């Protein structure tokens, strides 16, 4: 029982941006650049990071919706990257995804019944059309929608309801793990709360495992057991939630946390204002990718790519500050 449900090792996904006939040298956007983590059954791994840092690409690569360039992904001990299309299609049953934009992820020309029915039919989960319909109604009820909505089109729903449909589609095939790619970012706070609760309920009733991607730290904090902080294609810090919030280690994590506005007008946080912009993954800085914005930066940061420093069991950080070898530089 010690085997993690999902184990990702050194995952890399590069997008070629220049591939010309005469120019053999290829340029890449290193959207995901060497990520490793494990997810255990029943837990929720939260992933935060700024726009463009590779969160979605990572999620899609794990599902092989984008072919990863390198690395290993093991689901229940089976190597996913080695599967052929037919086997992959079978595996799809076990791993599902929920997208950010509830409108874009639903085909505007299909009714809810058809959308959910498609999922069922693909894996022959229900044989007859009638059974399928019953199952669809059941699913709708499960996500808090009225079974009468079966004949409606996506545009006839509100944003929150659409997201419920997206979730219903994901759970239709009884997956073991769901990758939720910013499922609440497009929603109003009140609706967001409904959906977050729904995720929690489903986790409890169906025993689901989540990888929950978001850029909103407070949301991630609310739903996750462990949290990975991403920056420019890498996980710079991964830790148990409580520890992370009590004591963020990576300078980026620190900045991120301080930047989240507080709900209490009396709390005036000491904000760490980062200077400069997020560098581009097609042209990442040398050494530590964060050094351009880091106030602790030292010469070594510009030259040496930091490696994972395990600071506590189940917690690592990608920063020279915590590396025995370089600690001296930071004093």
């Amino acid at each position, binding site marked *: 029982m010690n085997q993690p449900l999902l184990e990702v090792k050194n995952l890399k996904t590069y997008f070629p941006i220049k591939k010309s006939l005469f120019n053999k040298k290829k340029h890449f956007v290193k959207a995901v650049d060497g990520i490793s983590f494990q997810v255990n059954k029943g837990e929720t791994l939260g992933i935060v990071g700024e726009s463009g840092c590779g969160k979605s690409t990572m999620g*899609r690569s794990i*599902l092989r*919706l984008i072919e990863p360039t390198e690395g290993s992904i093991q689901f229940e001990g089976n190597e996913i990257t080695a599967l052929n299309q037919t086997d*992959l*299609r*079978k*595996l*799809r*049953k076990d*791993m*599902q*995804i929920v*997208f*950010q*934009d509830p409108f*874009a*992820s*639903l*085909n*505007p*020309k*299909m009714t809810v019944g*058809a959308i959910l029915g*498609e*999922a069922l039919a*693909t*894996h022959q989960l229900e044989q007859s059309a009638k059974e399928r319909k019953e199952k669809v109604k059941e699913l709708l009820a499960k996500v*808090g929608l*009225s079974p009468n909505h079966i*004949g*409606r*089109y996506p*545009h*006839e729903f*509100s944003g929150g309801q659409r997201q419920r449909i*997206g979730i219903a*589609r994901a759970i*239709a*095939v009884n997956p073991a793990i769901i990758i939720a790619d910013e499922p609440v970012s497009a929603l109003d706070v009140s609706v967001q709360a*409904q959906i977050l*609760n729904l995720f929690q309920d489903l986790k409890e009733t169906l025993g689901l495992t989540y990888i929950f991607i978001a850029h909103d730290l407070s949301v991630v904090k609310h739903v996750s057991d462990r949290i990975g902080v991403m920056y420019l294609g890498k996980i710079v810090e991964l830790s148990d939630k409580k520890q992370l919030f009590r004591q963020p280690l990576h300078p980026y994590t620190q900045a991120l946390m301080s930047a989240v506005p507080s709900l209490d007008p009396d709390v005036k946080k000491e904000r760490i204002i980062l200077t400069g912009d997020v560098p581009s993954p097609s042209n990442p800085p040398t050494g530590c990718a964060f050094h351009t914005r880091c106030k602790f930066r030292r010469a070594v940061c510009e030259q040496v790519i930091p490696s994972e420093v395990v600071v506590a069991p189940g917690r690592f950080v990608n920063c020279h500050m915590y590396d025995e070898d370089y600690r001296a530089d930071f004093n």
Partner: protein
Amino acid sequence: MLGNNPTSLVYPDPIDIETKTQSSVAHFIKKMKKNKGAVVGAMILLFFIITSAFAPFIAPYPVNEMKFEDSLQGPSMAHWLGTDEFGRDIWTRMLYGGRVSLLMGLFAVTLSGTIGVILGVLAGYYRKLDIYIMQFIDILMTFPSLLMAIAIVAVLGVGLTNAMIAVAISVVPSFVRVVRGSVLSIRETEYVEASKAIGVKDWKIICKHILPNVASPIIILATLEFGSSILSAAALSFLGLGAQPPNPEWGALVFVGKSFLSQAWWMTLFPGLAIMLVVLGFNLLGDGLRDALDPRSK
């Protein structure tokens, strides 16, 4: 804290009150009806379709009967739109000609649409095929349609069907381009990705997700091309590649009438107007369709 009880809604959700589920067809028709242009367009087309369909019953004279003593007469009570050089009734010939011209447009658009959609979907969906298909389309595009038409007719023989094939082939590139463009963007949508994530097979994705969503650009293009196909077919019949005399295809009527322009303007004017009206009708309808198919429009 105020209590929370997610299911105890005392009053019905206002959204439920509002959106009575309406069949998409009814909704579509309702939208179309509200578009004045589309209604006018549809009425113009309906007029020509009905009159052509019932030509044998409506037409006052036999279509090819020559009455030399009546030749080149202007519009009158006996001959509403005048007569041609052989005393044939122009109105009658236009009625019959409509059957050919409208069918011709329909055939050309259907054929080119089918080929164009297949190629466009393949090029847009399977990126590896893209470069080959588009290269082929580029070649086709730089090719004068006249030569293509002559060649096709030469290989397949003279005749209406072959002329239509020629016209259809010259329209294929525009379909391919439009469809490919749309497929490229739809292919990247999250609902396609979601289907892939579920494990739906490619051909099912194409049929269920891609095609229904490229339908609206296809329909608009089709309505545009319908009119221009009739015009191209007319140009072909001028070269003897389309409808053969005495078949009263509209384009042929226009071009034959040209020789008699100074004595009998009605010979070319009325068929020409018919073509223009049909083109107008289709364009109006196309614009209406675009609005009606746009989910953002109400």
